[in-house]
């Protein structure tokens, strides 16, 4: 497998009057061709900041970035964090592109969607107006918009939410990128429309052998489409592994808590949900040590004082399934089942 995207030791912080907001801390991640990697977490965990970094969309004047994000382009490799912004701009939309969460506000209301789509093509293929037009109709057809030639002349408000999200996907695909970043692509949509869009994205991924970085808070969506999963909490990846690892063999207390918080469609006697107590921490004053420790149910099982003292490393017995926790990994299945008992 070839890696399409390699993030290593990414740190992102935003200076404010009250101190730096540490949005992402020491994040490493790879994305291969044809695979879907999901980043899951709650609001403020740093998932959107990560996706914007990959696109090189942070304002350098208000953001402190370090680490590297390497994306191969032909025979060279561009580092989005450290290379010339012009080089990054030249790749944006061509090598990597992005679908945003809100299809209502991501399209320009004044321009016909055909024009907006063609623009994405013309930026990288200047002057080829006829090709752009042809490509626009092809892409609208591909994402399942009926009568694409006619609909290209419509304005965004003439489309429903689901249709607008299809237009957004078509726009992202105009230059056949190899990396597609989807930031909560179905959050604003109804479930039946969400099912349509997820199916569409999976079909397109197969067709172009794209790597998809999916940002979401919805564990159901993750289970439906992700090959590998990174769980984020307060700017850190707390667990990384295959979808099966995360759902059936969770190793980080936060992942366990998150899975227990989701109501499952079940028959018969209903179990009380096991919520995670407390609130996510402020990113300005992160708790010392493990950021999750003030909310962690299993803190008694870790070596005394370790959780408040140091942030555990992201390690695991298997290198493909790593997590952050001071409780010895061999003890964890038993520790987690004990408190979650009776399930």
């Amino acid at each position: 497998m070839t890696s399409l995207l390699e993030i290593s030791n990414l740190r992102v912080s935003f200076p404010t009057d009250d101190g730096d907001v540490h949005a992402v801390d020491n994040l490493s991640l790879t994305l291969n061709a044809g695979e879907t990697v999901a980043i899951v977490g709650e609001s403020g965990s740093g998932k959107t900041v990560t996706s914007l970094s990959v696109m090189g969309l942070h304002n350098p004047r208000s953001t402190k970035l370090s680490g590297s994000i390497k994306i191969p382009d032909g025979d060279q490799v561009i580092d989005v964090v450290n290379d010339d912004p012009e080089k990054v701009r030249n790749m944006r939309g061509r090598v990597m592109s992005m679908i945003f969460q809100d299809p209502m506000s991501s399209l320009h209301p004044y321009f016909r969607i055909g024009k907006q789509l063609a623009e994405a093509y013309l930026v990288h293929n200047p002057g080829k107006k006829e090709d752009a037009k042809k490509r626009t109709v092809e892409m609208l057809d591909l994402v399942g918009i009926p009568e694409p030639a006619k609909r290209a002349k419509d304005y965004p408000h003439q489309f429903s939410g689901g249709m607008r999200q299809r237009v957004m996907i078509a726009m992202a695909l105009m230059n056949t990128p190899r990396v597609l970043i989807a930031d909560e692509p179905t959050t604003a949509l109804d479930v039946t429309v969400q099912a349509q869009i997820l199916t569409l994205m999976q079909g397109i991924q197969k067709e172009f052998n794209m790597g998809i970085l999916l940002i979401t808070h919805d564990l159901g969506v993750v289970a439906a489409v992700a090959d590998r999963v990174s769980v984020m909490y307060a700017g850190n990846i707390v667990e990384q592994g295959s979808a099966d690892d995360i759902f059936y063999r969770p190793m980080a207390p936060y992942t366990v808590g998150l899975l227990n918080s989701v109501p499952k469609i079940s028959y018969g006697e209903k179990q009380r949900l096991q919520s995670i107590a407390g609130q996510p921490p402020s990113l300005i004053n992160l708790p010392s040590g493990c950021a999750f420790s003030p909310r962690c149910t299993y803190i008694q099982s870790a070596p005394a004082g370790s959780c408040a003292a140091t942030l555990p490393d992201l390690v695991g017995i298997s290198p493909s399934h790593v997590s952050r926790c001071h409780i010895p990994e061999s003890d964890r299945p038993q520790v987690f089942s004990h408190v979650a008992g009776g399930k």
Partner: protein
Amino acid sequence: MSTEAALFSIQNLTKHFPVKKSGVFNNQKALVKAVDGISLDIAEGETVGIVGESGCGKTTAGRSFLKLVEPTSGKIIYKGEDITHLKPGKMRPLRAELQIIFQDPYSALNPRQTIGNIISAPFEIQGITPDGGVKKEVQRLMERVGLNPEHFNRYPHEFSGGQRQRIGIARAIALKPKFVVADEPVSALDVSIQAQVINLLEDLKREDGITIVFIAHDLSVVQHISDRVVVMYLGKIMEVSDSNNLYSAPHHPYTKALLSAVPQADPHIERTRERIILSGDLPSPINPPSGCVFSTRCWKAQDICHSKAPEMVQVGQSQVACHFPE
């Protein structure tokens, strides 16, 4: 269930919103049929979930139950009394028993009022002084919903989304209501916080015997909390069923499609399941399809579905509005 046993019952309730039709010569008004003839009996202590996609009329239904929007026609019966046409003054004493929890905890609280003022407003409006004084009662309520009672003098912006939703719940339960409409109370919250609020609502229901109408688009949440589930589509009820039954044996094609579209947090289920992908979008509620409103997207639709609206029929333990129930 007979009407006498029901605490709250609605009969053939409709709510149509007039909208202006575009066109120079056409000044005729069109109607958005947000709720179009729904009937439902709710027993005391029961939790009824209402699910559906955006635009199906679930929020309008919930609000018209409490006469926060005046229904166009139909009847609302509470404790055997027809309250459909009660004047606001006559309605006010009843409001103590009928409460609502709003969806958006950010816009449902007045930013200029302290939490103490917000939660004590119901006492002031109803002219009730609880035992031990208002302040003591408000602090008890705050403790009840899991807030620190010392935060009495803080303003809404000092609280997180989950805490604000708790404030909204404290306000709703202040007067010990019998019947609460919870309109998407957890959809603005993160998963871990969502579970806290669901557990809180379940405690209130168990300890105070509150009857709850729980409106949400998230089917797994609704199944978790409800005894009975109502599925709505385009202003009409498609199916009413016991919650376990609905999920194990859906009878209406729309219910089936809706359930198959909900992704579950379990990769094995997700890999093996078959999704029913509905074609197209929700039709406009201004011009709903003739006959069965779901007929334009239904894979089982026959001629009769396009011409004649189906009646509610009993299938197994569910009531289904379909000509060809599963």
